[in-house]
Each structure stands twice: as C-alpha cells, then as structure tokens.
C-alpha cells in the first residue's frame, strides 16, 4: 500500500504549482485553471486522509468541493465571457478599473 505521505507530497506539489500559476499568469482562463488545480490538490489530500483514517468525512468534503467548484466555474466563466465582450482582452493587467 502506498503510504499517505506520498499522496500528501503530491497534493502539496500540485497546490504549489496552482499558487504559482495563480499569481504569475496573465490570462484569466489560465488563472481559472490554476484555481481548479488547487481545489483538486486539496481534494486529493482529503481523499488520502479519508482512506488513511478509514472515515467518510473527507469524502463528503470532496463532494462539497466538487459541487462548489462546478458552481464557481459556471459563474466565473460567465464573467470571463462578459469581460472579453467588453474589453476584447483576457489580460488581467488591463482589467484594473476598479481601484482607489
């Protein structure tokens, strides 16, 4: 059986990659994908803990995360489409009107 630490390290690597992409990427779609990546990294950790402790709580959490992620993707993509229609660009640096 694969030890839990393997899963956790994989989860951490995926999460770290997600953060880096989240901060440094300019394309909104890519940033969106990096968020999905972080969510799934967390899901992996939950599943691993659920298996290791032999409890269902982690699995339930995962389902919730998937549901929320789906909803978020629906809303987020709708926003992205509207932004593109208005600005003809997906570069996040150029979407900066809302400020002090």
């Amino acid at each position, binding site marked *: 059986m694969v030890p839990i630490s393997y899963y956790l390290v994989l989860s951490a690597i995926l999460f770290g990659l997600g953060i880096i992409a*989240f*901060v440094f990427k300019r394309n909104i779609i890519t940033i969106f994908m990096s968020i999905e990546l972080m969510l799934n990294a967390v899901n992996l950790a939950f599943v691993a803990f659920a298996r290791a402790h032999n409890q269902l709580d982690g699995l339930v959490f995962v389902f919730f995360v998937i549901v929320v992620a789906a909803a978020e993707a629906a809303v987020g993509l709708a926003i992205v489409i509207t932004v593109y229609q208005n600005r003809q660009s997906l570069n*996040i*640096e150029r979407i*900066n009107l809302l*400020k002090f």
Partner: protein
Amino acid sequence: MPILNYLWIILALPLLGSAINGLLGKNFSKPAVNAIGIGSVSLSFLSVVELAREFAQLPAGDIPWVRNYFTWITAGQFKVDFSLQVDQLTIVMLFVVTFVSLLVHVYSTGYMAHEEGYYRFFSYLNLFVFFMLTLVLAANVVLMFVGWEGVGLCSYLLIGFWSLKRSAISAGKKAFITTRIGDFGFTVGILLLFWTFKSVDFNAIFKQTMNMPAEGFAPGGVLTVICILLFTGAIGKSAQLPLYVWLPDAMEGPTPVSALIHAATMVTAGVYMVARMNPLFARAPFALFIVALVGVLTAFYAATIGLLQTDIKKVLAYSTISQLGYMFLGLGVGAYAAGVFHLMTHAFFKGLLFLAAGSVIHAMGGEQDMLKMGGLRKQIPVTYWTMFIATLAIAGIPGFAGFFSKDEILDAAGSGPHANIWLWLLALAGAGLTSFYMFRLIFLTFFGKPRFDAHKVHVHESPRSMTVPLMILAFLSTFGGWFAAPHLLGGTDYFEKFLHPIFSTYAVPAGVEQQVSLAGAAGSAGEIARSPIMELIHSLTGPPVIIALAGLLLAWWFYIKSPEIPERLEQRARGLYTLIFHKYYVDEIYAALIVNPLLWISTNVLWHGVDETLIDGAVNGVARVARESGSQLREIQSGNARSYASWVVIGAVGVTVLMLGLWGVVR
C-alpha cells in the same frame, strides 16, 4: 376669603401681567398694555393693603405667618418648600415695593410714551415686581435667592432696554457680572447655612440660633463666616465698596428703571437680607462691624465722587450708593429698625429724585449734563418743587423724611450699643457732603441763567401721568418720616415699635452683648430724664442738622453767590480735583487689574489655547489621522487582480504559519 391664606396671589398678579404683555403685547394698543401693566400692580398693591389689615388682627403667636404651598426640592436631608411668610418686616417691604412700583408704572406711561418696545418695557417691569415680591415674601433662603437672582435678571434686561445702544448693553453686562461676584459669596453662604443648621427655613434657623452663644469679636466662627459670606452678596446687590461700580453705569437704562430698580427697591435687597438675617448677625459682632465699616466707608466715599459729577443721573447714582451705605451703617451698629426705616424713606425721596430728574431730562429733550441746564425753575415748576422737597429730605433738613431716618442712624452710630466715634464722624462728614452735592444739583439745574440755546430746546412741563407720581412721592418724602417723630421728643418711635418683634424675638439672650446694651440703656435713660422740649431742641440743633445746613449754605455760596469759586478751587487743587472727577480711577484700576488680565487670559489661553488648540486640535487630529492613514492605505486597492492574488496567498501563508505555531504551543 382672607388673603393671608392666598399669599401667592400677590406674586401671581404681576407675573400674569408680565406674561400677557410679554407674550401677546406686541399686538395690543398702548392703553391695553397700560391697563394690564398698571392693573396687575395696583391689584397687587390692593392685596397688600388688605393683607396688612388682616395681619393687624393676627394674634402675636401667629407671627411670622408662614404658608407652605408645595415642596419644591427634596434631596436627602435637603428640602426646600415654596413657602411664603408674612411678618412686620415683610409688610413694610411689601408696601414700599408695590407702592413705588405702582407710581413708577404710572410715570412710565408718560415717560416711555414714544419708545419702541413699549409692551416689552412693561412686561419687564411687571416681571421685576414679581421677583422682588418673591424675594420679600420668601420664607426660606433658597426661595429668597430665586427672587434675588430674578431681580438681577430684570435689572440686566432693563438697563439694556435700548438694546441698540452699545453702552447700554455693556452697562447691563457689567451690572450682571459684577453682582455675580457677590452672589458667589451669597451662594457659598447659603450652603454653609444649610451645612450648619440642616435647614434653609428662616424660622427653623433662627430657632436654632437661640441655643448658640454670641461669637467673639474675631473672624473664624461659623456664624461670622456665614454672615460675611451673606454680606458679600449684599455688597454686590446693594452696590457697596468694592463692587459698587456697576450702579453708576446702570444709569444707561430708562429713568423710571433707575428710580424703581436702582434706587428704591432692588438695590435695597441687600439691606433687607441683612435685616432679615439679624439673629445670625447679632451673634457675629465681627461681621456686624464689617457691615458698619463697609457701609460708612461707602457712604463717605460715594459722596465725595458725587461732588463733581455733572451728569444729573450720575450724581443721583452715587448718592444712592452713599445712602445705601448709611442703611448698612444703621444695621451694622445694631439699629436694624433705623436701617430699614432709612430704606423706606430713601425709597420715597430717591425714587422721587430720579423721577424728577427724568422729568428734567424729558423737559430738556434728552439732555443730562447739568452744565447745560440752569434756570429751569420757572419753566417746570412742579418738577422743581417736588425735586426740591426730595433734596431737603435727603439732605436731612428737619421735618422731612430723610432727617428722621438719618438722624436715627447717626444717633445709633454715636451712642448706640455698637457705637464708634470714627464711624459717627465719617457718617457725619458724608451727611455734609450729601447736603452739598444735592443742593449743587438743584442750583445748577434750576437756578442761575440758562446755559442752553433757548431757541433749540423747547422746555416744557411733563404730562400729568408723570407729575402726579412726583407729587405723591413729594408728599411721602415730607411726611413719610413722621412715624419716628416721637423719637425727637424722647418717646417711642412707632416704626421701631412696629418692627420690634423682628429684631428682639431672637436677640442674644445673655452675656457680653447684653451688658453692652444695658450700658447703652443706662446712657439713654440719662437722656430720657430731659424734658421733651429739651430733647426736641437737642435733636434740632444736633451736629447732623448743623452740617446739613452748612452743606446747603456752602452750595449756595459756590453756585449762586459767587460761581467763580469752584473754578478757582479747581485750579488750586488740580490733583485732587482730577482724582475725584475721574472717580478715583477705580474703573480704570479694575480694568487694568481684573478685566484686562481676564480678557487676555480668556482670549489667549482659554480661547486660542484651550479651545482652538486643545479641543479643536483633538477633534481635528482624530479626523486627520483617519484621513491620512486612509489615503496611504488605499494604495493597496490597486485594481491589479494579481496583486490581490498575492495578498491572498500571503494571508493564507500567514494564517497557516500562525496555526502551526499555535498548534505547537497547544501541544
């Protein structure tokens, strides 16, 4: 319906008149305002007459007659009732106040006929009568204080009646603020009174004093301190040294106001208060001596200033201060009845002098400078004769009211239980000065050649509404002193006899005081041995009469016979002349020592320092901190989503680190 049970009606009538005229009077015609103003006061006066009739039938055990209407304040032990009291002293004061007020109201209908705010004037006058009656009728010291402050308020309102005149406004403020200094002492005195006796009711306090021995002749005893504090209030209200400065300025007000408030009634409130508190003062000989000393010094000092004033009302103002000094001298030497007697006669003749002066000013078309008058006696005969009678009365010419009262005071100062030769001499000198400056006023105003342009000034006698009050007061100035006439014959003074219970019920029972007065009694017993005729001759040729006549003659010599003498004297003693002419520079000294430093501190420390820098600074500072930090922190809201992302990450890392750290601590 005996009015003894409805004492409040006497108060309520003028208050009602004031309210109606003050709130609705703007739309009333002048006769309507007159009817309300004069009607309320005359009803009040008639109530007093009826009250006196019923009072005379009361058995001696029911005096003082106290009626408690409702409880006004209760706080622990401290309890103040709205209760009114009638005794002999109250009756005298009620008569003086309501009667003189009535005459002044009538006079004002003529004097103020062409003034703006006619209804306002009568509303204030009625309000004044209300507060003055409250002061007089109050059965406890707190209610008395209400009246005391109320008359001060009305005085302020009426001095500044011509509210567009700058000098009138500042005179009003000066009067109010100066008396406030004295009132501070009065307030502390009331608190100390309550602290000592656990009551503010006159009769409860006086009963307790029965068990207290007289204090020694030294400051420090609690009664002495209370009395001196109360007397401080009287110094302010009755314009004695050193707080007299407001009264001459108060002449900015309309003349009827000067007559009623600043001569006949309000300024005598201090005298009334000291007379009312006589059981306390009788046990505090040192305080009593202070009263006599302040009184006699003021009497003399103000008389010297009166010598050189040229404004007719200012002369009378200083004369009032001086006469108030005589009243306090009378109280201070233990002749309470004589002090109150002088209060009454003074109300008649000084009220008359002011009203007559108002008539002169009216005739001269507003001129107040005596140097621009002269020769008026043929043109305004009624004013001349009434004013002349009042002058005879104030100068102490035998037969007129002032003679009887002043003679009694001088008598007590010279041979009473608290007699003191220096007090007597100073008072006598003051009496001479009084006679001189009053006849100087008469001679300058009514005799000699006119010193004004007869074509420009149309001199005319005043209307009937003004001359009739003058004549009534002239009658009283002549015969108002005859209550005391038997005194001259070595017999009983009816006035003193009437007031006797007030000043003897709570007298010091035994001890030093008693011995002194026994010695005094022995002295007077020796005098009584003389026959009435001898006594009369003795009184009529006594020093007060001689010095009064000397003052008259000197004034006649200076201002009628050889008018160049005053000028020569002025050149001869220029320094002294300038000093007195400028009223000893007291106003200037007060301005330099008190007013200006106070203004400087208020402006630079309290206003610019505390208010602007400290308080405004704190408020503005808080606002500025919020604004400055906000304008710095808003830079975070850059609009750049990636920087927000970075903040989220940093926050998440921070929270994680914190939780791991805490986890470590917990474990």
